[in-house]
């Protein structure tokens, strides 16, 4: 039995305050309707591959994944790697959102097939603008290949 509604944005973020700030930023742009937040890499993979707690989830993939890199259990780069290895999730746009701007993180993310890399600004004003722009771009401007639909 499938349950729940289709999700547009999957937010993978272990820091509750960061998550709250992201939600607020999205809310300011009216983008919070179908956002799912998970708190670690394992939960993100469970959600995407409908396993564990999400085994009964409706068979649909999010339109974009906002992925932190430093995550408990399975880290962000591993999540990205597994997503790109599976044909159901291979084409989902992934935006890496992390606190660091370390060159090696940027390189590793793009090498594993990230679509975008964002260093979260400290200043809230900038942060709201960045997250809002991201949401608008991926939800309203960008066209996504219907890989999920084909798979489902």
């Amino acid at each position, binding site marked *: 039995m499938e349950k729940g509604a289709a999700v547009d944005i999957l937010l993978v973020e272990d820091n509750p305050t960061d998550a709250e*700030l992201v939600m607020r930023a999205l809310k300011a742009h009216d983008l919070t309707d179908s956002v799912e937040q998970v708190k670690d890499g394992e939960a993100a993979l469970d959600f995407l591959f409908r396993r564990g707690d999400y085994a009964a989830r409706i068979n649909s993939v999010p339109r974009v994944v906002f992925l932190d890199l430093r995550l408990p259990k399975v880290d962000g780069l591993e999540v990205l790697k597994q997503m790109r290895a599976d044909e159901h999730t291979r084409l989902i746009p992934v935006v890496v959102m992390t606190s660091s701007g370390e060159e090696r993180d940027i390189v590793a993310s793009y090498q594993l097939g990230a679509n975008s890399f964002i260093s979260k600004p400290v*200043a809230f004003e900038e942060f709201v603008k960045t997250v809002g722009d991201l949401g608008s771009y991926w939800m309203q401007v960008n066209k996504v290949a219907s890989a999920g639909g084909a798979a489902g």
Partner: protein
Amino acid sequence: MKRFGIRRQVALLTLIPSLIMVVSLEAFFLYSRSSDLDQGLLERGKLIAHQLASSSEYGVFSNNQAFLQNIANGVLHQPDVRGLVILDSASETLISAGKFSGSLNNMNEAVNLPAPLRSSAESLWIYQPIISAQVALDESDNKPDIQQIGAVIVEMSRLRTEGLKTRMLRVTVIVTALFLVFSLYLVSFASRGITSPIRKLSKAMRAIGAGNLDTRISLQTHVDELDTLAQGLNKMTAQLQHEHEEIRTINAELEQRVIQRTAQLESANADLESFSYSVSHDLRAPLRAIDGFVAILREEYASKLDEEGLRLFNVVGDNARKMGQLIDDILAFSRASRGELLLTRIDMNALVRQVWQELEPQRAGRAIEFRLADLPAAGGDLAAMRQVLQNLLDNAIKFTCERELAVIEVDGHTDGEENIYSIRDNGAGFDMAYIDKLFGLFLRLHGMDEFKGTGVGLAIVRRFIMKQGGRVWAKGKPGEGATFWFTLPLVDAYNEKKELENGERRGG
């Protein structure tokens, strides 16, 4: 010129003089011995002829041929007498005995001929006149009336003496040959005693030269000097080996130490890296939360706050952002220290222009006169130099913000050994008393409310310039501006270094 081995040289030098001596001695011996033989033959011939002449006087006088024949036959028994003739006063042959050969001319020779009548390779003819006894009696007379009544000619055969000579020559040649062989053997034996140790020495030297320090020489020789030489060489080689071992041990220790230190450094570096990674990651999240929630508070609870309350929240937000900047700067400095540089040729004119362009946001609304001289190209790391110029020009822009017309000059020249660049501004300047704090990390010469900044920019400049082999210094005066100089290697020097490194790599 052909080079002979020591052995051949010794042999030649020893043999040639003794050979010359032996051969000349033998030649002299042979000569005198054969003269003696010839002389002896002649003397005997003369004696025989003389005796024959005396004893045949009566026979010739009386023309008693049977008597003469008897005497002649007796003479023929004497050794070496080949034949003889007895002539009368008319040179007619009275008696001929043996195998006399040769003609009978010239009978009227002087008496007592010292030399033989004639001589050939096989025979010697001796002529002896026969003189009458009456004449012999008249010895006291000053001018005796010599009356020759005949002559004898004795032919002496050279056969025996020549045979003796041939035998002598043969023996001499054999003795010489034996001498030569024996001396050759002796010389080679003796020279082996000298040359073979020397050859051993030279072989050992070659082996030692090739790096085989285990080589030792043992000479079985009776030559003291060579023994001393071999001992000295052995001692030197042992010493060399000992020192070589020592150096190897020290090298191994050093290498071990380098490996240890490198491992320590690597682990420290890894720690540092994970530390800075943590800093960049984990320290910023709380700051973002502070600034974010303060902002939310200010927005959503503005109605419940008075002016002072709003101001205080502003202060909190400002400081959170400042701390964020500080973290960014620390990380930039840490990257400047850790990163490896890639040296290339840098077009400094283009780079300065580009950086100046990128600083446009900082220059917004400002009146700045920018003077850029023609700068020499330098050898350096492009990313590092971009950061250096960014920091210096940003400083120049920042510290001239109170000037109505800011003047920023970039100049550069080469002194043949390095390039010297300068950035001059007419800004706030600084007091030279605090020059030692200028390039220090987190050290600022101005108050936070005067000029923004964390005090990392110049520390990064110094770190990058030093890593590229340059120097950096500054001069300033409060209220009049500041000048910063830095040096970079010449492009040529950079090329040379690169070639050297390539050569080393090829060589290694």
